[in-house]
């Protein structure tokens, strides 16, 4: 008994929660399995009835899961791109070209001691990273990745995006206040002032776009921009795009507006006292935010998943049934022939290479070719594959821009930051709104 109570006493608060939750979850799982076994039929019926809810749940889970590789990728991009711009080589030891270094960073963060300073407010201190990370993940819900590939299509999607983005400031303020550190407090207050100031030009900058589009659903906004790239809203709203881009840079706390974690001034801002995975949440949230704001810029101004020009409709007529017996023969022969044909150049030209190596190389090349052909087929045949590729390509161009800015620009001062928002961005956003409204009055939508 004493052993149990001592072991219980050694657990930290999250540990106690987890150790209580694990048996409960196990019991729940067993119960669920039983319920599914007994009531399987009616549940399937119910699920088909509430397909939208189920779809949302699955999509939300996928979104939560893909944030981690996204963050890893952007962290690696940041390390490598900034290194290249600094004429350095950057990470090149862990994995091919150092690609695994960000994963190692993640593991390192997991293994560090999770430390709560004395005199900190433990509850708020623990909750703050959750709020920050949660807000950025929830923003992903309205992002349309491809036609049909989105978690939820709100008719107020854009409002939801701004609202969830604004929620992050609560988390940062919580972190800054609860850390019992003056640097953290300054960082938290800076983030509050900065985010509240930049929310206004951010929202106003898209008001003109909304006038043009007449909808707030992000899906609809993207669908409006289909066709040639001249349909993209950036050509109708260049000023709006500029203001939007500057304001989201500030919203995502990126250089030159990264005052909340200005490392040369207030050490690490709100994250000064955080370590371990709690810091990891802030860290990941920052990079997920970079992805989100890039994706939102693409969706609003750069046509989202639309290709820059409409593809000529390529209908690949592939009806395997019509081939008859030749289908079976093809399946048997094509890999052999393909492998041999592709290994022929090596067999003929590289006399130093043993034959088996040439054949293995030919097999690998054949596989690459087949996968490439399949990719092309999928790209042409499925809307969502092409859309996803276009969307990600455009998004990562903007991610590159954010990293590029970080490599180049120094940080602005807090009063210049606020002055810029209120004296320049907001009047410019209002001007943009009025000019757009006037143009619509004169020309029509």
């Amino acid at each position, binding site marked *: 008994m004493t052993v149990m109570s001592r072991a219980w*006493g*050694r657990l*930290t608060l999250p540990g106690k929660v987890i150790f209580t939750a694990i048996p409960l979850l196990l019991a729940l799982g067993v119960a669920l399995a039983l319920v599914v076994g007994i009531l399987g039929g009616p549940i399937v019926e119910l699920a088909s009835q509430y397909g939208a809810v189920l779809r949302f749940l699955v999509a939300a889970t996928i979104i939560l899961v893909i944030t981690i590789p996204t963050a890893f990728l952007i962290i690696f991009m940041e390390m490598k791109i*900034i290194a290249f*711009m*600094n*004429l*350095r080589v950057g990470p090149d030891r862990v994995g091919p070209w150092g690609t695994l270094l960000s994963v190692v960073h993640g593991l390192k963060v997991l293994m560090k001691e999770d430390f709560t*300073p*004395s*005199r900190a407010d433990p509850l708020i201190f623990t909750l703050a990273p959750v709020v920050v990370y949660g807000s950025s993940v929830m923003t992903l819900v309205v992002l349309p990745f491809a036609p049909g590939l989105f978690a939820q299509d709100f008719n107020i999607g854009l409002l939801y995006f701004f609202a969830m983005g604004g929620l992050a400031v609560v988390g940062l303020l919580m972190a800054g206040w609860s850390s*019992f550190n*003056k*640097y953290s407090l*300054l960082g938290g207050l*800076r983030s509050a002032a900065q985010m509240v100031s930049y929310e206004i030009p951010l929202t106003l900058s898209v008001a003109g776009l909304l006038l043009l589009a007449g909808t707030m659903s992000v899906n609809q906004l993207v669908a409006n921009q289909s066709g040639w790239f001249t349909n993209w809203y950036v050509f109708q709203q260049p000023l709006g795009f500029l203001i939007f881009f500057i304001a989201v840079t500030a919203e995502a706390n990126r*250089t*030159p507006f*990264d*005052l909340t974690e*200005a*490392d*040369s*001034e*207030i*050490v690490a801002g709100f994250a000064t006292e955080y370590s371990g995975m709690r810091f990891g949440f802030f860290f990941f949230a920052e990079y997920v935010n970079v992805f989100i704001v890039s994706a939102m810029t693409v969706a609003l101004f750069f046509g989202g998943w639309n290709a820059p020009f409409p593809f000529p409709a390529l209908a690949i007529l592939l009806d395997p049934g019509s081939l008859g017996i030749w289908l079976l023969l093809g399946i048997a022969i094509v890999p052999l022939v393909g492998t041999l044909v592709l290994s022929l150049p090596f067999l003929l030209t590289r006399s130093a290479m043993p034959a088996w190596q040439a054949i293995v190389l030919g097999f690998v090349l054949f596989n690459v070719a087949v996968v490439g052909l399949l990719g092309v087929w999928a790209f042409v045949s499925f809307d969502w594959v092409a859309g996803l590729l276009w969307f990600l390509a455009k998004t990562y161009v903007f991610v590159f821009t954010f990293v590029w800015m*970080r*490599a*180049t*620009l*120094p*940080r*602005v*001062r*807090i*009063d*210049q930051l606020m002055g810029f928002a209120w004296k320049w961005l907001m009047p410019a956003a209002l001007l943009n709104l009025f000019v757009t409204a006037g143009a619509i009055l004169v020309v029509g939508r």
Partner: protein
Amino acid sequence: MTTHASMDDPRVTLDEQLGSFEPIPPYPPRTEREHEFYTVADGEMLVNIGPHHPSTHGVLRVVMKLDGERVVDIDPVLGYLHRGVEKLCENADFHHTISYMDPLEYVSSLFCEWPAVMAYEKLLDIKVPRRAEYIRVLTGELNRISSHLLAMGFHALDLGGITPILYSFIERDEMVEMLASITGQRMLFNYFRIGGVNGDLNHEFMSRLGDWMGRATAQVEANQGLLNENEVFVRRNRGVGTIDSQTALKMCWTGPNLRATGVPFDIRRAHPYSVYPELDFDIPTRSEGDSLARYLLRIDEIKQSLRIIDQCLHQMPDGPVMAQVPRLMRPRPGRAFATVEGPRGQYSIYAVSDGTDQPFRFRIHDPSFLHLQSFTLLMPGQLLADWMTINASLDPIMGGIDK
């Protein structure tokens, strides 16, 4: 089995006072100024920056009294890097002291050795060969350029730009390698000797120098294009830490910081030493006296240093690089004062000999100390982030300040 209290044990609680740091000293105020500073009014707070803060250029600690983000008062706390170099030098013989000089201003070590050997040469009445003097000027100007590049890079780093420092380091690394090929060390050169220098120019140095001189101006200007016209950088520096020439003179400023206020005071011209009278160079000045002027002045100085190096290479005489100097030297009792123009200002040594082989008194004068004491003058009314700008533009090196 004995049990040890573990920090993971929740029954082990730390004293609550241990967890929080109050910058207010535990003792009653010792001076009027201390009383004034540590009396915190309503709405103000004391923020401790350093000694391990990323932008304190060493181990400077600064306590700031903040009202929001606005600095009300500032109190620099020194001594975290104190080694007692003066006392060490008084217990080492004259040759040893030169190696103690190097880590004082560790980014411009040659300018710390220079006044020391000059003072000893005065004490011993040694005539330094002209070739040695030219080599001193040549290496010294190279070191000045590398120091200025570092100062400019760190200026940008303190403002949040991470790239300029690396571009600066590429150039500085080239110069450091160059100096390593002639002095034998990359950072703490220990190159000047009493009566000359420790080794003649060699082929490796000259070929590296020739390579670099061909592209130096273009490279430095290209790198500074990142900052000089950058609106963010200019706005953060213009009008920050402004000081007028009279106040600067009263605060005993020297070097680029003084010249940025418009006073063309340069030891190389005001009190010529070595072979500087034979060389043709300008003393760049700027009238604004703010951080931007101090930053831009360093670029102008780099250009002048390149001119000097060019002339040195053209006028380099032939001959020995060391005078005839005894191994064990006992100068006549007397005193000597020597001063040079370092990258940060006037660097001086005052040495007293009592006839033994060790200096009787050895006093090091460092310009950074005098620049640092002007914080109290420059900071009040500025923002917290301006401290980084001002500190970086004044370019103090704590190794020299704390000695």
